[in-house]
């Protein structure tokens, strides 16, 4: 039943996030803008334009991006945990984060153009997972264990390649830019970029949420799943592909944001139980709520923004400890 509450909670967080920011706006301004947008109140055009710029063009893309990225990381974390039947797995398990980090650093080193950095991060995230899967398949049929090992190898490869790029980078301008990017930020997302990334992320998260039933069958073992008519390999690789796509996209939009994909599924499991068909949509919604809230903290507490990756880690660790204490019985 609690699953049905989550969309309302999400809506509440979105409204809250839209009304706070470093530009001093009173709640009355928000209502005035809403009224004017609906044609109920008259506002001076200049004031309306400023409010529109702040609320719709600056805050909204950021809130939407936080929601999408939180949903993407959490849904992919939850489905990786189901595929690998391991509660300690996070979206980076197959090397996607290492790859994307390397891609972004390479983009900064070679061009520095914002769009190039994002595309390069996205592409290298996919390449890293591809390398992981290839390594896993090098020695005959890939099992879950060889996949994890392949992912580790690929992740390590791209992490060291990233260190190499850092070494080659100019320590006075490129290196700080790489470090800056790695910490993660949602500040630069605008509606145009969001339009490009939103559809694939929504499609990927939707596909993962729908795969919950098949994953439940898989959790009973491959043979049982086959006897129920579930295509084992297709499900497994389909889920890996969708989870990789969405996590790579999220990294390319906002840099590295840790812990969300690991912690949120556990909180969701505690709240609604281990059944994947319910757990996956719940993880997506909770992830969206969590990251929007974390971004509110990141951009409002101090004058300089706290990197959102730091906020999620700081908030995620106590949450994880609580979950560990209370929820061991809930692990499937």
């Amino acid at each position, binding site marked *: 039943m609690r699953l049905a509450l989550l969309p309302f909670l999400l809506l509440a967080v979105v409204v809250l996030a839209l009304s706070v920011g470093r530009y001093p706006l009173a709640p009355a301004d928000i209502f005035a803008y809403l009224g004017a947008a609906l044609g109920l109140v008259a506002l001076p055009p200049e004031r309306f334009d400023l409010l529109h710029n702040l609320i719709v063009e600056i805050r909204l893309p950021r809130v939407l991006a936080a929601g999408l990225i939180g949903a993407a990381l959490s849904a992919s974390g939850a489905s990786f945990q189901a595929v690998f039947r391991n509660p300690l797995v996070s979206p980076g398990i197959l090397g996607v984060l290492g790859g994307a980090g390397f891609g972004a650093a390479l983009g900064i080193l070679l061009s520095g153009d914002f769009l190039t950095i994002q595309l390069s991060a996205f592409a290298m995230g996919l390449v890293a997972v591809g390398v992981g899967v290839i390594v896993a398949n090098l020695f005959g049929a890939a099992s879950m264990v060889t996949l994890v090992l392949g992912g580790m190898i690929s992740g390590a490869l791209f992490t060291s390649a990233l260190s190499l790029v*850092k070494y080659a980078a*100019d*320590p006075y301008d490129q290196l*700080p830019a790489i470090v800056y990017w790695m910490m993660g930020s949602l*500040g630069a997302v605008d509606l145009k970029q969001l339009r490009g990334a939103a559809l694939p992320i929504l499609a990927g998260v939707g596909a993962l949420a729908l795969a919950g039933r098949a994953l439940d069958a898989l959790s009973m073992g491959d043979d049982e799943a086959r006897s129920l008519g579930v295509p084992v390999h297709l499900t497994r690789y389909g889920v890996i592909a969708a989870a990789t796509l969405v996590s790579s996209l999220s990294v390319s939009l906002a840099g590295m944001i840790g812990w969300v994909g690991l912690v949120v599924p556990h909180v969701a499991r505690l709240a609604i139980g281990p059944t994947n068909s319910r757990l996956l949509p719940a993880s997506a919604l909770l992830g969206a709520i969590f990251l929007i809230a974390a971004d509110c903290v990141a951009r409002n507490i101090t004058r300089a923004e706290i990197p959102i990756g730091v906020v999620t880690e700081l908030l995620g660790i106590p949450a994880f400890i609580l979950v560990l204490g209370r929820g061991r019985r809930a692990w499937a």
Partner: protein
Amino acid sequence: MPSTSGLAPVRLLLCALLALFACAPAHAQTREVTDMAGRKVAIPADPKRIFGAAPPVAVTLYAIAPERLIGINVPMRGDEKSLYRKEALDLPVLGSNAGMGRQLNLEEIAAMRPDLIIAWLGFYQEKAKVVESFAKIGVPVIFLKLDTLDDYADAFAFLGQVVGRESKAAEMSAYIRDALARVREATADIPPAERLRVYYAESADGLATDCDKSFHTEPIVIAAGDNIYHCEQSSHVGMDKISVEQIVAQKPSLILTQDKSFPALAKSSALWRNVEAVKSGRIVTVPHAPFNWLDRPPSYMRALGIQWLANLFYPSRFPLDVKAETKKFYRLFLGVDISDADFTRIME
């Protein structure tokens, strides 16, 4: 009892060897200098092979004694080769001890046989550790203090003594002091409320910046710009994240950007359209060839940078023939004669 006479030839040999060692330092004349950290150090009378252990130091040496550099810290950018002195073009990249990026390798430095090492008296590393590390290879170390642009004037005067080029160094110090004095005089009476509001945009997304009290943004303050991000510097590297909302609220009249792809992004993105300076189209890219005029690394290029900024901020108070001044500066400090085409390219 064995006779000691059998040992005589050995003793003789030992004595000869000792004498040889005792004589060796006498070949290289040394003298004592007091470096900018206040240490008294014995250095070669005429050091010929010098290593600058961090980019701000090496770049300063590059201005006054390029042929004595044994290497550089980071690779030169390929697209700006024509603006480099030819003495420095083929120097090996040796890294630095600045704590990030390419680290120097002591053995490699030792193999290059420097007779003097000049280190940066930065606030991020311990002097004693730097001295200790180079003591291992037995090369004397002196420190340059380069925290502010005024320090550069002193640093040139000091380096002039070290390399025996006092008159050249005096010319450079005088240029820096004169530039500072002229800019300060022209802008001193601008009341704080009337100073031009400037946002300093770093990184490709334009959302990294540095505090007005950070050494990274010193030239903006000297040129009497009001850096809208008011705070104390919190880290050596800098680049704080800031939100577009804060920038909209602070109404900067001008954006200085260190990233050449940023102006196009700012003009096309809805995020930036209500920022004062974007509305009026005043986004200026900082020249960086062959070294950045303002920062990263900080250098004496700031002596030109502050004049350019003061002219950009207050053209009527500080009129300047930027092209002529740039040519003069590049001639004096960088040893290159630039053409009009070079100037246009530098300013792009």
